[in-house]
Structures are given as C-alpha cells and as structure tokens.
C-alpha cells in the first residue's frame, strides 16, 4: 500500500510540484499580509494621525486600542477635539512591504550609526564563521565517523564518550572558549565545531554501518585486502555522506547566533541585536529572512550538485 502511495506523490507532474513549492512559501506570506493589511484582523494598536486635544499624543504615536478609545471618549465629553488615528500592528510586526523596503535599503545605504557595518559585511563574516567551523569539524569528524562505523572496537571505544558529550550544550562552552581562544572569531568557530563535531561522528558512523555488507564481501572475494575503506566503503557511502553533510551544515547554522554572541558580538547576530535595540524591526526581519534564504538556497544548490556528482545514486530507489 505504501509502495503505491509514495511513488504517486513523488511522481506528481513537475509543473504541479513547482506550484506546490510556490504555494508553500505563498501561504505564510499571505497570512502575514492578512494580519498586516486587513484592518479588522488583529491590529491591537492605533497609530495616531491627529492628536486632537490629547496632550501626550503625537502624530505617529502607537497606542493601545482601549487607551485610544478611552481618550477619545474623554475628549468628546470635555468638548475638545477628538483624536484621530487608524488601526495598526505593534512595532515588532512590520508589514511585508516595509520589510521588503528594508531589504533593499539595508543593502543599498550606508549604515546609519557610526560603528555600523553594512548588512552584507555582517553576513560575509557570519558565513566565514560557519565555513571554518564546519570545515574544521568535518576534517576530523568525517574520517573518525567512517572509521567508527567500520571498526567495532573503535566504535565501542569512542561512541560512549561522544554520546555523552553530544548532550552538553555547545553554548555552555562559551566562557571556556573565550578564555582559551580570545574574544574574536576563535571562540565562535569553536562553538560551531563543538556543536557539529559530536553529532557528525555519530551520524557518519551510522551511515557507514548502513552500507550493505554484501558490497564489502563482494570486494573481499575479489581480492581486496588493505584498501577496503578507500576503495569500497567510502565510494559506496559517498552520496549518503554528502546528504549527511548537508543536514549537518543546517545544524551548524543553528549554532551561529549563539556563537556570535560569545566574546565580541559580530556578524549577522550583531546586526540583528543592533537593529532590534533601535527598534528597526523591519531590518531584523530582513536579516532573519536573509539567513533563511542563504541556508535554503545553499542547500538547494548542494542538492543539485549532489545529483550531478552521483548520477548512479538517483535511481537507487528502483533497485529493489
């Protein structure tokens, strides 16, 4: 029964699939638009356009709806000018077009504050942190994972400790990392490494273990002795290894914000906290969306690349 349902879903016409993909993004945006542009949906605040007789109202002030109506009633009773305004959302929910504008402005105008940095500079810094953290982790984590997945003795020796260490939250090592590596990029990269490495070893080891033993046995009956790992195990698991790395890279991104708060705040996190401090929430949203776009976009790119790199892996599903 499963066999019937799943291929049906997968083999949906490409045009239909593209439409569904588009909708999966359009629906959340539509909901956001509804909350932002339809005045009777939510809008708990009132944006004052004419303060009337209320002395502490100014044009552009955001007040609670109840308070506004209360004041309007009082003014009416006292025979003074009634304040006017229109329904609005809190400052932390900017409308889509405001965020879209911030998106453009953030890339096209110089930073407003003296110590400010361009958004793309912040992003580039963040990407470098992720890159080095992930590369350093992979340099040791992937080979160790493959060996752990291949040799039972090594697995028994390393896995219990790694299992233990994986439960320790990476940010908990922040202070230690700063003490050892200083306040700049060192400790940030260290946090990404700590957050990625231990998962990586376990995930890669598991992938290695899933290798069909027949493949290894076939290689042994063909006379392979010493080069089993480089000639058989690694090539056989390479597509799955690649997929693991894609997933792990996603996890590395989730450690980014914490990592960047350690020592001197930097990168996209610094940009976000800075903008939030000045209540430029449209910039905050723009930055968050950019992180999403970079993550999603790069993963999409890696997936395409994977299909090019491992043409023999595409049709594995039909194998049995």
């Amino acid at each position, binding site marked *: 029964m499963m066999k019937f349902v799943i291929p049906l879903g997968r083999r949906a016409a490409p045009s239909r699939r593209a439409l569904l993909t588009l909708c999966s993004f359009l629906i959340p945006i539509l909901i956001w638009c509804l909350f932002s542009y339809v005045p009777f949906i939510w809008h708990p605040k009132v944006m004052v356009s004419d303060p009337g007789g209320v002395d502490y109202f100014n044009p552009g002030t955001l007040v609670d709806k109840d308070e506004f109506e209360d004041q309007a009633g009082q003014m009416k009773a006292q025979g003074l000018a009634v304040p006017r305004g229109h329904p609005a959302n809190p400052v932390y929910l900017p409308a889509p077009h405001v965020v879209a504008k911030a998106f453009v402005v953030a890339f096209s105008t110089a930073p407003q504050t003296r110590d400010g940095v361009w958004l793309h500079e912040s992003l580039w810094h963040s990407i470098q942190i992720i890159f080095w953290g992930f590369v350093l982790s992979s340099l040791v984590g992937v080979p160790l994972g493959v060996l752990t997945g291949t040799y039972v003795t090594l697995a028994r020796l390393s896995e219990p400790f790694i299992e233990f260490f994986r439960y320790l939250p990476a940010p908990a090592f922040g202070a230690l990392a700063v003490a050892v590596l200083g306040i700049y990029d060192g400790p940030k990269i260290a946090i990404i490494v700590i957050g990625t490495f231990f998962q990586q070893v376990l995930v890669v080891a598991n992938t290695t273990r899933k290798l069909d033993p*027949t493949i290894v*046995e076939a*290689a042994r009956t*063909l006379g392979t002795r010493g*080069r089993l790992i480089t000639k058989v195990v690694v*090539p*056989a698991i390479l597509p799955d290894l690649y997929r693991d790395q894609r997933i792990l890279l996603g996890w590395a991104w989730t450690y980014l914000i914490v990592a960047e708060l350690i020592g001197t705040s930097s990168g996209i996190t610094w940009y976000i906290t800075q903008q939030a401090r000045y209540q430029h929430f449209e910039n905050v949203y723009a930055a968050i969306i950019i992180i999403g776009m970079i993550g999603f976009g790069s993963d999409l790119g890696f997936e395409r690349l994977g299909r090019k790199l491992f043409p023999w892996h595409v049709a594995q599903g039909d*194998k049995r």
Partner: protein
Amino acid sequence: MTAASPKLDEGALAYLEQTDAVRQRFKRIKERDVVLEVRKLHKTFETPQGATEALRDINFKVHRREFICVIGPSGCGKSTLIRILAGLERHSSGEVLLDDKPVTGPGRDLGMVFQGYSLFPWLTVKRNIMFGPQMSGQSTGTAESLARTWIDLVGLTQFADAYPHQLSGGMRQRVAIARALVNQPRILLMDEPFGALDAQTRSRMQSHLLDIWKNIDLTILFITHDLDEAIYLADRILVLKPHPGEVQELIEVPVPRPRAPAQFGSPEFRAVKARLEALIHPPHELDSAEDTVAFANMIRFTDVADDVE
C-alpha cells in the same frame, strides 16, 4: 523408451540408472584433480538461546571443471556452507581445502556470485569488472582489456559504460559473473544467483552459464532451492537436510550432456526430480505444522456475499 519404462516403474531407484556415456563421463570427472575438498566440516553458531548446530559432518570433493549444485530446504545451512567455502565465515571444525591448501579467508581464487545485487553501484559495468584485476595490482590498461573480453563474453558490449542501476536483473548477474571470472578463480561459488530473476530470464541465464562453463576452465559450486535448476545444471547434486545441515545424498545426475531445456521431460530428468522431491519434501511433512494451521484459522476480511470460490 520401451526398455526404460519398466525400470522407471520399479520405483524410486531409477535415478541411479546411468547410460554408458554418462558413466564414462563421471569416471573421467573423478580422474581429474580435486579442486575443493571439504572434510568433516562442522559449524556451530553461538546464539543467546545457546549453541545452534548449523552444519554437521559435511564431506565432499569437487573435481576440476565439475559443476556441483547444492540443494536443500530453507534453513539447511546451504548459505552458511557457501560462505564458509568462500572464506567469508569461519567454520567450527573440519577442513576446507582448495588445491590441498586450507582456505583462510576470501580471495581471488574463490570467486563468488551473490544472490542479491552485489555490484558496486558507483562504478560502470566496465569498472566493476576491472575492480578485481586492479586490486591485484594490474595496470589500468591490462585491467581494461581483460574487462572488455569478459563484457563481450557475457554479451554486454553495449552496456560497458552503463551503471548497474540501468541494467535489468539478469544483466546485473551477468556482470557479477564476469566480475568474478575475470580473476580466473579456481572455483566459482554461486549463492542462488538466479533466485531473484523471473522464470524466463532465469532459464536464459542457466543456458548462458552452461555455455560459459563449457568454454573455459571453470569449476562451479552452485547453490539453489530450485530442483529443475539443479538437475539442468549439475553433474552432481549435494542434497542437504536441515536442523542440523547434513549431507543427505550426493546424486550423480544421469541426464546426458550437452544439456538442453528439452530434456526437462526426459525419463532421467524426471527420475532425479522424483528422488529430490522425496528427499526434500517428504510427504508426511507437507500436511503438518505451520502451513496448514495458518490457513485453517484464516480470518475473513470481507462481508460481501458473492464468494469467489
């Protein structure tokens, strides 16, 4: 036919009748060198429930260019046996000798074709076949020309650069055979290699295998659970019985060579098949145990009144 019929009617021992030509052939086979010898082979598995005896006192010899089939019901340890012969598993006691030297592990001399797809999915057909020669240190050029020869021999010239997933089940097993044979093993071990193929492909593969075997210096030990397949291919059939796996009989197949599918109806063929059926599916076991119980208590999943039977 008239002369043979009364003998067949005499009953179960008809399969022992051999024509002079067949008898001569077996005599010639036995005069050849012994390639593989198994002596007092035992295999015990340690399980949480205690030790299980998988194989008990297996003895047989395989002569050069002989085709031996091993047959038996599921659980008789035929796969364990072939894995031990291939050096992929250790035996508990006894000896496995290849050219009088004990087998200590898998290697080029013990070619193996597995039941499942064991091709390297990341390599093309040609590179799969080149794998063995390259592992033994031959140059890429030599390996490639060897591979070409074998690809032609198994009739996959057009598919040399295809990946295994692009091939049908039958083609994949041809590649697996070529990949094992390019190493020129002393013996080719085949573990139900055609078990997953459809009936038509299977019979074509059987003929194809016989063709290969005829034309090169090749000794084959072939595991199957298909009686027809065993009789069609084998010189001798080693019948195992289960729990524990023991040799029940080593049958000399009296069907003359060269073999052809037309012989499936011949008296010799039917006599051997009757014997194998009697050994492997004894009548009293057919009605007993799980088979019948499961169906007796079959739950009815439909309420409709229009019964199908």
